[in-house]
Each structure stands twice: as structure tokens, then as C-alpha cells.
């Protein structure tokens, strides 16, 4: 066995949250200026069936390979699939009514501190409980008890009036509300807490799927790292962190220690890098890296979608989980000795960045750009942006790789488009910040190496610390995942 670590298993889930779109950052701000937008937004929400019957979503949960997207021209919305299913090889696409159950389980009615969400009694009895009846991960009696009996619509309305709780909807009906955690604390206002709880709940779902796929008990996990995009905290520490603890607690990982890694969109890759380093020391053997979804990004491009009379495509949150262990002799290895880095001094010069994260690490190990079979950059679904006149994000991030290969003399200028088409993964993930940042391809990519004779893939993520206004700098990182040397009998490079 080598000294490398591996991603031994993974999961990817989507949660359909159409009636949370109103609480996404962009819709919330626009609705405050123009409440009449509510009607328009509501009339452009996709039903769950169409979320299932959509190739990019099926790719995300592992039921189709990203390469299939290249065989279909946009619009993908109009392309109906043979047998779209909610269950994926890598996870699932959960409907909204089940997510309400998960949210309720994530809070705890028995504790006055965390009695954060009220659901209407009939909604619970007639919709939520029947909906989760067959879900393999939602049958734990203790957790189901947390759903409780619910409240009357009168109590809910009163709470909204008295305590400014956020109204919650299902099929346009008021069915609950989400409370603040403190009267004055900005960090504990209802829309912030709803955001944080949604991240927690979706991360738990992803983690449960990963444990099932890996066939291990929650008790086997000894470290959980959350790389989610949220800011759990309170008035004295607005980004206090350790959401990993909440995620691990709800999943039953009683033997795990926990902490968070934050680096904007590059969070997941940095978290994997950290897990890799820790596994190398030997003390921690099964590390879960989890990323919950981002409610704030729901409806981000809603204005463009309304303008084109398209359904609002930012109606899903995504979550993922990875299991990192030492080399198991079979899984492709994480070449963190070839980590593509973007030190501060590189600044924002595009050429220097791409050389630093792609060219230099490969060159140092005697490899060419064309020795990498597939590159996965930001993988946002282009159908969200291109029809409304905005850029194809994966394409814009992939082109410079091809230009680098041309500059290095590995391909001709006329081969740039072929390079992109053959080696750069098409986008298929929701715009969820950290979720699409290269990592949605990891599961497919590992399978490409194990079963489809590929040698190595490169996952690339870009972070945007400049958005916080504390710096003008961008950030990026890349990670090569490579065929396990044990499988090919020895030679490490090329």
C-alpha cells in the first residue's frame, strides 16, 4: 500500500425546495422592494416530477455520466428521460415535504432553545408522515418523535404576528413557521437560522447516504469536517462554526470529533486536503467530509428565468459527503503531493494562476497537461445561465486549461475546442457555491478510473475571498486523483 489517502466512498443529494426560493438572498431582497413578484415567482416553480425528469440532476445523483450532456444540445429542460427516478446510485433527489420532516428532526421541540420550526398538525399527519414512511433513513423512532404533533394554524399565525417568525409554505398554503433564536441577535434571526438548519439537514442526508453506500456504521467515523457555505454562530461570533458537530450528532456519529473548514467555494477541496493530511498521521482512520446545501443561493437567477418565461432553475439545494481513508489498495489515490496551489503572491493574474494550479504541479512530477484524462472545474449547470445571456461557467473556466496546453505546445490552436469537448467536464450542478466547485465529478471520476480505464483526473476549485471585502484576492486549488499504483503494478508516474 502507498502512503496516499483515498476517497473510498461518496454521496450526492439534491433537495427540491421550491417554496424556499422566496428565502433565497436575491428573491428575498427583490420581494422586499416589490411584493407583487411573489405571484410571478410562484407561477414559475417546477413541480417535483420535472426536477426528477431532468438530465443534469440525474447526473448529479449518479444515474447518468456527465459525458451524456455533451450529446444533448440545450435546452435540456425539454428533453424527457426514459425512467427518471428519485433514487440515484450516489444519493437521491428529495421532495420538499420530506425535507420539512428532516428540518423538524434537525431542530428539537423538546428543547425550548431549539424549538425553531412549527409545522401545522394536519400537514404533519396527512402529508409529512405518509411521505417519509418509506424513506430508509427517516425511520428512527427517536428522530420521528421530534416531528411532534404540530401546531394549529391559529397558533402559527399568532407566532408569525407576535414573534416575526418566517411563514413556511407547501403548495402555496401556509403550513408552518420558522422562529428566531433570540430577539436582538442578528445571527439568530429566522432567515439566518433557516439557512443554517437547511445546511445541517441536507448535510445529514448526504452523510447518511454515504454511510449506507460505504456499508459502515456512524460509530465508525472518527472525524467529521464540514465544508458547508453558511455562517452558524451568534452575536459574539457570527461565524463560530463547527456545524460538523451538529451534523455528526444528528447522524449518530458518537465517536467522531468535529470541525469546519471554510474557504468559500474552494472549501470542499481544502477539506479533502486537510482530511488527507490527517489520515496520513494514522490516528484517524475514517474521515467524513460533508457539505450541506446553501439556501441563500436559491433563486439567484430568478429574474433572468422570469424574463425568459423559464421555470426558476435555482429551486434545489445540493449536498455531498466523502469518506477519506488510507490507501485501500483499490481506490484511486489522492495525489496531494501534486496539489495545485495558488499562493497569495500570485495575485489575480489569470495566466499565473493557471500555471500555478495546473501546469507547475504536473510538470514537477514529469507530467504534461495532456496526461490528465479529465478536468473538472466549476460545474454549474449552463442551462441556468446561458439562456438568460450569462456565461457558461464551466466552459469559461475550462478554456484557459486548453490555452495552457496550446502554449506548452501539446496541442494546436485549432485543437482548443476539441480539448475542451473531450477533456473538460460539462456543467450539471446547481449554483450552490461550494457544491459545484469541481467536486460533483469526483464520484464519476473515480468510477472513470476504476471501470473505464482512465488514468488520472484533476479537480479544480476557485474561491472568492474578495467577496467578503477583506481582500481583493481570488483563490484556487487543484487535486489530481490517480489510478491506484497497486492496480497497475508499480510505476507511479505516467
Amino acid at each position, binding site marked *: 500500500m502507498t502512503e496516499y489517502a483515498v476517497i473510498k466512498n461518496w454521496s450526492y443529494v439534491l433537495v427540491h425546495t421550491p417554496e424556499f426560493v422566496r428565502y433565497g438572498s436575491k428573491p428575498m431582497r427583490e420581494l422586499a422592494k416589490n411584493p407583487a413578484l411573489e405571484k410571478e415567482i410562484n407561477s414559475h416553480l417546477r413541480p417535483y416530477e420535472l426536477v426528477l425528469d431532468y438530465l443534469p440532476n440525474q447526473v448529479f445523483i449518479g444515474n447518468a455520466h456527465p459525458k451524456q450532456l455533451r450529446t444533448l444540445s440545450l*435546452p435540456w429542460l425539454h428533453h424527457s428521460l426514459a425512467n427518471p427516478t428519485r433514487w440515484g446510485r450516489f444519493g437521491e433527489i428529495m421532495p420538499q415535504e420530506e425535507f420539512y420532516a428532516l428540518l423538524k428532526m434537525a431542530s428539537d421541540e423538546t428543547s425550548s432553545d431549539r424549538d425553531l420550526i412549527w409545522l401545522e398538525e394536519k400537514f404533519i399527519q396527512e402529508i409529512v408522515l405518509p411521505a417519509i414512511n418509506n424513506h430508509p433513513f427517516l425511520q428512527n423512532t427517536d428522530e420521528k418523535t421530534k416531528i411532534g404533533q404540530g401546531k394549529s394554524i391559529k397558533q402559527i399565525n399568532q407566532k408569525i404576528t407576535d414573534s416575526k417568525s418566517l411563514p413556511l409554505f407547501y403548495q402555496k398554503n401556509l403550513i408552518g413557521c420558522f422562529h428566531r433564536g433570540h430577539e436582538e441577535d442578528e445571527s439568530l434571526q429566522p432567515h439566518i437560522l433557516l439557512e443554517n438548519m437547511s445546511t445541517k439537514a441536507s448535510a445529514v442526508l448526504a452523510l447518511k447516504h454515504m454511510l449506507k453506500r460505504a456499508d459502515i456504521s456512524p460509530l465508525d467515523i472518527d472525524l467529521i469536517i464540514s465544508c458547508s457555505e453558511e455562517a452558524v454562530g451568534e452575536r459574539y461570533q457570527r461565524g463560530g462554526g463547527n456545524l460538523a458537530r451538529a451534523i455528526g450528532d444528528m447522524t449518530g456519529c458518537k465517536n467522531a470529533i468535529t470541525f469546519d473548514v471554510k474557504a468559500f467555494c474552494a472549501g470542499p477541496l481544502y477539506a479533502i486536503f486537510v482530511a488527507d493530511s490527517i489520515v496520513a498521521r494514522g490516528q484517524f482512520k475514517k474521515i467524513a467530509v460533508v457539505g450541506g446545501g446553501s439556501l441563500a443561493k436559491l433563486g439567484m437567477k430568478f429574474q433572468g428565468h422570469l424574463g425568459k418565461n423559464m421555470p426558476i432553475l435555482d429551486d434545489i439545494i445540493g449536498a455531498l459527503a466523502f469518506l477519506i481513508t488510507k490507501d485501500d489498495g483499490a481506490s484511486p489515490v489522492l495525489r496531494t503531493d501534486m496539489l495545485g496551489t495558488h499562493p497569495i503572491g500570485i495575485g489575480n493574474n489569470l495566466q499565473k494562476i*493557471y500555471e500555478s494550479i495546473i501546469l507547475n504541479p504536473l510538470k514537477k512530477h514529469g507530467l504534461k497537461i495532456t496526461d490528465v484524462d479529465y478536468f473538472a472545474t466549476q460545474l454549474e449547470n449552463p442551462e441556468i445561465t446561458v439562456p438568460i445571456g450569462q456565461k457558461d461557467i464551466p466552459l469559461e473556466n475550462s478554456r*484557459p486549461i486548453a490555452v495552457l496546453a496550446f502554449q506548452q505546445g501539446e496541442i494546436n490552436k485549432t485543437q482548443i475546442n476539441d480539448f475542451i469537448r473531450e477533456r473538460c467536464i460539462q456543467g450539471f450542478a446547481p449554483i450552490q457555491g461550494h457544491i459545484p466547485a469541481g467536486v460533483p465529478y469526483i464520484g464519476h471520476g473515480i468510477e472513470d478510473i476504476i471501470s473505464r480505464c482512465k488514468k488520472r483526473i484533476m479537480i479544480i476549485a476557485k474561491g472568492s475571498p474578495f467577496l467578503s471585502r477583506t481582500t481583493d484576492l481570488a483563490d484556487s486549488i487543484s487535486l489530481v486523483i490517480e489510478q491506484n499504483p497497486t492496480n497497475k503494478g508499480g510505476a507511479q508516474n505516467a
Partner: protein
Amino acid sequence: MSQENVARIAEEQNKDNLIAIWGISDIQPLIIGAITINKGDCFGFSGALANKELGLKSYHVLEPEIIAAIPQTIYAQEIMFIELSKDPSKLQMIFEIMRALRDSATLDKLMSKIENHDESSGPLMNEILKSVNPKFALPK
């Protein structure tokens, strides 16, 4: 807010010698910005440039005449890679749009289209794009 600062600086400077140069390559914000800084805010952002015509012309930094004015060493070290990394047909589209928006006759025609636009005939941005070149219409 963006519009206030721009209005203030424009008042302070000699407008004959003042231009705007854009680094953004998203076409819609680029069009909105270039029109706003020339003819005023007609897109409803209700900023300081509503009803204020500054008359400033806009260029995209990658347009040939701007590139030609920048020293070769800087171009080679910093700009060429960025230029090569952009979709060439998209760049051509940006250049054609920026040229059109600098042409007074074209811009005046466009302004009357904007003022008389009826949303039921389709999104305003699509009308603007089609006016510059019918091939630029947004995908259906």
C-alpha cells in the same frame, strides 16, 4: 452607490476627455452599463443617473484599439492569456455591441426602442441585442 460616484466624477471632469472602460464580459450588465453611462439610467434602477445623460462612451478593454494602446510587454504577460481564454465568437459579439453603442445614430434608435418597449413582445434585452445584430438574439 455606483451611480452617484460616477455622476459626481463625470461632473468634475472634462467630458471630452473622459471615457469608460469595462472589464466585465457578461453581455447584459455590459450593455446596461454602457447605455446608462451614456444616456442615463433607463432600466429602472432609480439611481443618480436616472434622467441624467453623461454622454460618456464605453470600450471593452479587449477591443483592438484599447489593446493597441497598451504596452506590448504588459499585453504579453497579462492580457494575451485572458484574451485567448475567451470564446472568440463571444469576443466579436462584445466588440460589435460596444461599437454600436458608441455610434450616436445607432444609440438614438436604440433609445427610442427602449422607451417604447412593451414586455409582451419579449424581453427588452433581446430587443436590444437583435437591434445590434439579428444573430445576437438570445436562445429560445
